[in-house]
């Protein structure tokens, strides 16, 4: 990526803030790797005062662009407005000719990830406060009313009108009667649990039966679709002529049922017409509607 035409030389005074920012972070960290990286950044920012088009690593050049943007637009290095930054960055990228879209995309993604982290943190802190907002515009009445103010102040200053009362801690032995009563209750609890577990078992079995029924229905539905296709193709074989039902059955009872069901379905779908010549025992005819 090329540096922007008009200004790639940044006055030293402007970059000082970013430099201080980086040096501050360096002073905070102990790991050598991190320090090395920050040193590199410091070098980059210093080189912003010169021409940095010579930097070969695409990634480093993109980072340079980030520093440049922050310095150019005098963004606060301690509190980057990421929305503004992303917009500026994209604008700058569009101007450039040799943009490495992968790196640019990565930088924008990083910006938004940080933004999301920030908003998550905000969300978390707002959850901690249960979403309550304090409005100091309204003066609370305890602040205005004398007695309420006096009481509140007294408590805040350590006055304590309540104290835990001391009562007798003693207990007594359980009587035999109470043990027998407990036994009776336990018996009922056990019975109740047995009953509940039986009910659950019954429901489970019923559930399984229903599942089987559902599977059966499903299979049946699938067969039905297949049947309809078969019967439809048989009807199509007659090229739109009116066909007696007996001609599209193979003669056995099961096939007759399958055929008549499919015919009724196709008729309901308005794909065929169905009629009977003599009611109730006359021949049934079918004919495709689209002919």
């Amino acid at each position, binding site marked *: 990526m090329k540096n922007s035409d008009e200004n790639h030389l940044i006055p030293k005074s402007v970059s000082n803030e970013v430099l201080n920012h980086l040096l501050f972070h360096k002073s905070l960290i102990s790991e050598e790797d991190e320090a090395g990286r920050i040193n590199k950044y410091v070098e980059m920012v210093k080189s912003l005062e010169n021409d940095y088009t010579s930097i070969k690593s695409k990634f480093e050049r993109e980072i340079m662009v980030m520093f440049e943007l922050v310095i150019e637009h005098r963004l606060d290095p301690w509190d980057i407005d990421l929305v503004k930054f992303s917009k500026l960055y994209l604008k700058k990228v569009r101007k450039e000719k040799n943009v490495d879209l992968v790196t640019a995309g990565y930088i924008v993604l990083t910006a938004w990830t940080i933004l999301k982290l920030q908003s998550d943190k905000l969300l978390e802190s707002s959850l901690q406060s249960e979403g309550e907002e304090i409005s100091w515009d309204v003066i609370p009445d305890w602040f205005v009313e004398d007695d309420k103010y006096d009481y509140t102040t007294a408590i805040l200053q350590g006055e*304590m*009108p309540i104290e835990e009362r001391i009562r007798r801690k003693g207990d007594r032995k359980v009587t035999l009667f109470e043990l027998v009563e407990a036994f009776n209750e336990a018996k009922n609890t056990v019975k109740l649990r047995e009953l509940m577990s039986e009910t659950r078992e019954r429901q489970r079995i019923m559930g399984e039966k229903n599942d089987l029924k559902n599977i059966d229905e499903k299979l049946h539905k699938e067969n039905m679709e297949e049947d309809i296709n078969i019967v439809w193709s048989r009807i199509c074989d007659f090229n739109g002529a009116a066909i007696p039902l007996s001609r599209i059955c193979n003669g056995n009872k099961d096939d007759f049922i399958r055929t008549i069901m499919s015919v009724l379905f196709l008729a309901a779908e308005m794909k065929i017409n169905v009629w009977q010549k003599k009611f109730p025992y006359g021949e049934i005819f079918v004919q495709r509607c689209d002919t």
Partner: protein
Amino acid sequence: MNEQVSDSRVVEAALFSAGRPLTINEIKDATGLSENVIADSLEKLITEYNERDTALEVSKAGEKYVMQVKTGFAKHVVSLAPKEIPDRLLKTLALIGYHQPVKQVDLMRMLGAKVYEHVHELNEIGLVHAKKDGRTKILTTTKRFPEYFGINTADRKKISEWLAKKAGVKMKL
């Protein structure tokens, strides 16, 4: 008369044995005495323990009655009866008790963000009730509050007055 004296002794024994605040009905169920006799006995016991030179008292706690150590002696026997509620919660509780019904957000202005944790704990102990109201909660004390601290009324307004008096603050008429 002798019978009457004896009745109040039965009620006294009941309060002693229970070691917790009792309703008149609970005393009735245990002793078989009538409500009237129990109520009279309780009045008698309250006066008697107040007037007598003793470390104990019989008093009203919310809508119940309890036998307990008089406030002045509590500190001497604290190791035998350890406290159940941490001191840090007492301040929050005293403010809720007085200002109730109070918005959690208002309480937060008085005490800061720790209020949320306190309210949660006080709710768990069963001393404070929190009812959602928009983005905040309305806080009140539960029935257990006056029972626990031996406040002689269950009426919120009167609890406020009781607290103000104890804290040495004059209530506005």
